[in-house]
C-alpha cells in the first residue's frame, strides 16, 4: 500500500495520543519511510475532545488528514468517532467503540445519548464499512476499564485484512512505549481485542 491515513478520536484520558504513537512507531517498523502525525489536545485534561492523525507512505507531508481521505477512523468513544466523518474516504472503515460519554451540555439539558444501533444502521447506507466493537466490557484479565484503546487496536489488526500494520509490529511498539509495569496489561488487552467480533458490520 503506498499511503495510509488513520484518524483516532476520543475524549481526554482514553489514550488517543498513546495509540497514535504506537501506530506511528509500528508504521516505521513495518517499513514505511514517511510517517507524520498530528494532534489537537488543547483541553483534553478537562474532558474535551481529542483527535489525532497518523499518516504514512508516499506523498504524505503535512500533519492533517484531508477531507475524505482517511482510510480508517478509530472512535474510542462513539460520538467522537462520528464527529470526524467528513475526513473518511468513501471506502474507508469507520470503527466505533461502544464507550459512550455524554457531554456536559447533554447532561445539563437532559438530552439522551444517541442510540448506537439506530445511528449505525443509517450510516451503513452512506458507507460500506461501518463497525461497532464492544471494547468496553470485553473479557480481559485486568478488566477492560481504561484499556479500551488497546482492545480496539487488537480488534482492528485482527479484523481488517487490509490494515497495513501487523500484529508483531504493533506489539513491539507497545512494548517500547509502555511504562514497564503496564506492558503486560496493555499486551493482554491487545490480545483480548484480537478475539473480538464486531457487534455490527
Amino acid at each position, binding site marked *: 500500500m503506498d499511503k495510509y491515513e488513520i484518524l483516532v478520536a476520543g475524549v481526554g484520558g482514553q489514550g488517543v495520543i498513546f495509540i497514535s504513537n504506537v501506530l506511528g512507531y509500528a508504521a516505521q517498523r513495518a517499513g514505511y519511510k514517511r*510517517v507524520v*502525525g498530528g494532534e*489537537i489536545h488543547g483541553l483534553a485534561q478537562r474532558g*474535551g475532545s481529542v483527535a489525532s492523525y497518523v499518516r504514512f507512505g508516499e*506523498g504524505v507531508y*503535512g*500533519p*492533517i488528514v484531508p477531507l475524505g481521505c482517511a482510510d480508517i477512523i478509530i472512535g474510542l468513544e462513539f460520538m467522537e468517532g462520528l*464527529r470526524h466523518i467528513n475526513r473518511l474516504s468513501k471506502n474507508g472503515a469507520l470503527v466505533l467503540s461502544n464507550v459512550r460519554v455524554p*457531554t456536559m451540555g447533554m447532561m445539563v439539558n437532559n438530552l439522551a445519548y444517541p442510540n448506537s444501533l439506530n445511528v449505525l444502521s443509517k450510516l451503513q447506507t452512506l458507507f460500506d464499512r461501518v463497525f461497532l466493537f464492544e471494547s468496553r466490557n470485553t473479557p480481559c484479565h485486568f478488566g477492560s476499564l481504561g484499556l479500551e484503546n488497546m482492545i480496539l487496536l487488537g480488534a482492528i489488526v485482527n479484523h481488517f485484512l487490509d490494515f497495513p500494520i501487523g500484529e508483531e509490529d504493533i506489539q513491539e511498539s507497545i512494548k517500547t512505549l509502555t511504562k514497564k509495569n503496564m506492558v503486560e496489561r496493555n499486551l493482554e488487552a491487545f490480545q483480548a481485542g484480537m478475539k473480538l467480533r464486531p457487534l455490527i458490520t
Partner: protein
Amino acid sequence: MSAETIAMASPGTEGYVLGNEAVARGAIESGVWFVACYPGTPSSEISDTLCKLSGEFGYEFEYSANEIVATEAAAGVALFGGKSMVIFKGAGFFVASDALFHLVLGRLCGPMVIVACDDPSMHSSSDEVDLRMLAQAGSIITLVPSNVTDAKEMTIEAFKLSELMRVPVLIRMSTRLCHQRGFIKLGDIPKRRDNRMDWDLLKGKWERFVPMGGDPVRGEMLKSIEVIRRTKNIFEDNKLNKLVRAKSDIGILTCGVTYGYSQEAIKLLDIEASMLNVGTIYPLPEKLLKEFIQELKTLIVVEELRPYLESYIRALAKDVKPDLQIFGKWNGYFPQAFEYDTTIVMNSISKAMNINVPMEYKEIEKRTDFVKEFTFPRDPVFCPGCPHRATFYAVKKVTKDKAIITQDVGCYSIGLTPPFKMGDIVLCMGGSIGVACGISYFNDRPIIGFIGDSTFFHAGLPGLINAVHNQADFTLIILDNGTTGMTGFQPHPGNDSRGRERLAKKIDIENIVKAIGVEDIKVVDSYNIKELMDATSDAIAFRGVSVIISRRACSIISRRENQRKGLKVVAYQIDSNKCEGCWLCIEKFGCPAIERDGEVVKILSESCNGCSVCAQICPFNAIFKEDTNGQI
C-alpha cells in the same frame, strides 16, 4: 515517554517526537546553558521537556513569573556570554516585546534563541496575531520551520546565527508544527560542563548596553540595520530555504506548515509547479525571491494568517516581473483567517488555476450533515472536585446574576460556559483587575473580578496596586489552586517547588495583597460553600477593593498527590430514597461525576474526587460519604 525519547543520548537513533520536543532536543544538542519560559499552549511541551531533562543534561531551567522577566533573565545570560533560550506562546511575545524590541539594539556575547508559537485558528488562544509581522516590526531575525526535522535543525542553526550576529534569533512555530509528530535523527550532545561566565574572555567583546535616548541609541540603531543587511546576505544562499524547480511556469511560495500542504495539494491535483519554501522569514532573501519569480508566469502564495510574503513579493514583482500573475489573499483566492490544511490549499489552487478538484465534496457534505444530528459539542468542563466550580456556584448564589463579572485566563474561564455562564469580559492575562477598576468609576452595581493564582503573579500585581491606589471599588476573587492548571500544572511563584523537585521560596499571596494596602481580605476554603457565600456578601458590601482568596488545591494535583501517597479517595454516594430528582447537582452545579439514573442521580465512584460540595448543596440531604453513612 516523550522526554525519554529526547533523552536517548545515542546519536544516530531515531525518535518519533513532537515538533515541540524536536526544538527541545535542538537546544540540548546546542549545549544550552539556561532556559526560561512562561507556559502557554501550544508552546508548553518545549519548556516542560526542557524542565524534565535539565538535571540530566546540566543546564539551568526557570519557570518565570511571566514572559518579560523570562526574556530579561535569558538576555542577562546571553549578554554576558552564556547560551540561553526563552519560550512562550504568541500572546507571551506581546508581553515580552518591551524587552525584545530593545534587546535587538545591544550586542550579545553569547547566543540567545527565542521560541514563540502562533496559534492559527485559535485552538487555545484568543488572538490570531501573526508574529512574523511583529518580528519585522522589531527587526528580529526570524526562522520558520515547516516540519519536525526542520524544527530541530533550525533550533541549532538559530543558536549559531545568534552567536555570529550577536543578536537574538526568533524561531516562530505554530500549533500544527508544535503538535506534529515525525521521526528525527538524534544528534550528538556536547559534554556536560560547569558553565560559568568567563569575565576574562569577555574583555574586548563586551560593550556596555544602555540604549537610552539620543545619540548613543541612534548609533545602535544603525548597527542594527547593518546586522540585518549582513544576515540577509547569509539568507540569500541558505539551506534553510528550500527551492525545488519543476518544468513549469507555475510557482508556489510557502512558509511553515503550508509547505507540506502545498506539496500534497499539487500531487492530488496532479499539476507541476516549482516550489520555494521560505524558512528565513526576517530578513527575507530578496535575491532568491527575485530569481524564483523571474522564470514564472504564475505565482501562488500559500501562507497562513497575514499576507506577509505576498505583500513583499508583490512589491518586488512590480520592479522585476510586472506581468507576473499572483494569486493569494490580496485577490481573495486564499482565506485571510484561520489555519490551512491540504484541503483548503488544494481548493484555493484549483480556483486560481481553474482546474477541478478530484474530490466529491457534495458527498462528504451529505455525510457530515447526517452525523450533525448525533454529535453534540464537547466543551471543556471543570474536573470532578474542581475548587473553581464551588467558588462560582457560591458567588452565583449571592450575586444572582446581578453583578458585573470580569474574568481572566485560566481553567476558571470554564466558568463562562454552562451551567454558570459567569463572565462579561475576558481581555488578557491580568485584565480582570484593570477592567474592573475602570468600570468601577462609573457604576454602582457590584463588580466581581476572577483571577487565578498564576495569572495573579503574572500580570495581576500592577493592576491591583493601581486599583487600590486610585481607590476603585470592586471585589477580586483570587482562585488559588496552587498551580498553573490550564497549561499543564507548571509551578509558579506561589509554590515551594520550581519544577523537578527543586525547592523554591514560596511567595504568599495574602501578604502581598496586605502589603499593597487592601483593607478587606478573606481567605476561604473553596470547598466550603457557606464560608464562600458569607465572604462574597461581605466583600460586596465593603467600599473599596476587597480581596477573597479562595484556596484549595486543583483536584488533578490532589488526586496525583493521593495516588503517590497511596491514599484512596472516598467517593460520595446518593441515597436514592432521599433524592427527589430535582437535578440541581447536575443542572446548576455540573460535576461530571454525577449522572442521571432514571428518576434519581448516581455518582460515578471512580470519577468522584470526594470534595463534598454536592453534599453541601443538595436540598434533600441525599448525598453522603461512602463510609460515614449519612454525614459529610
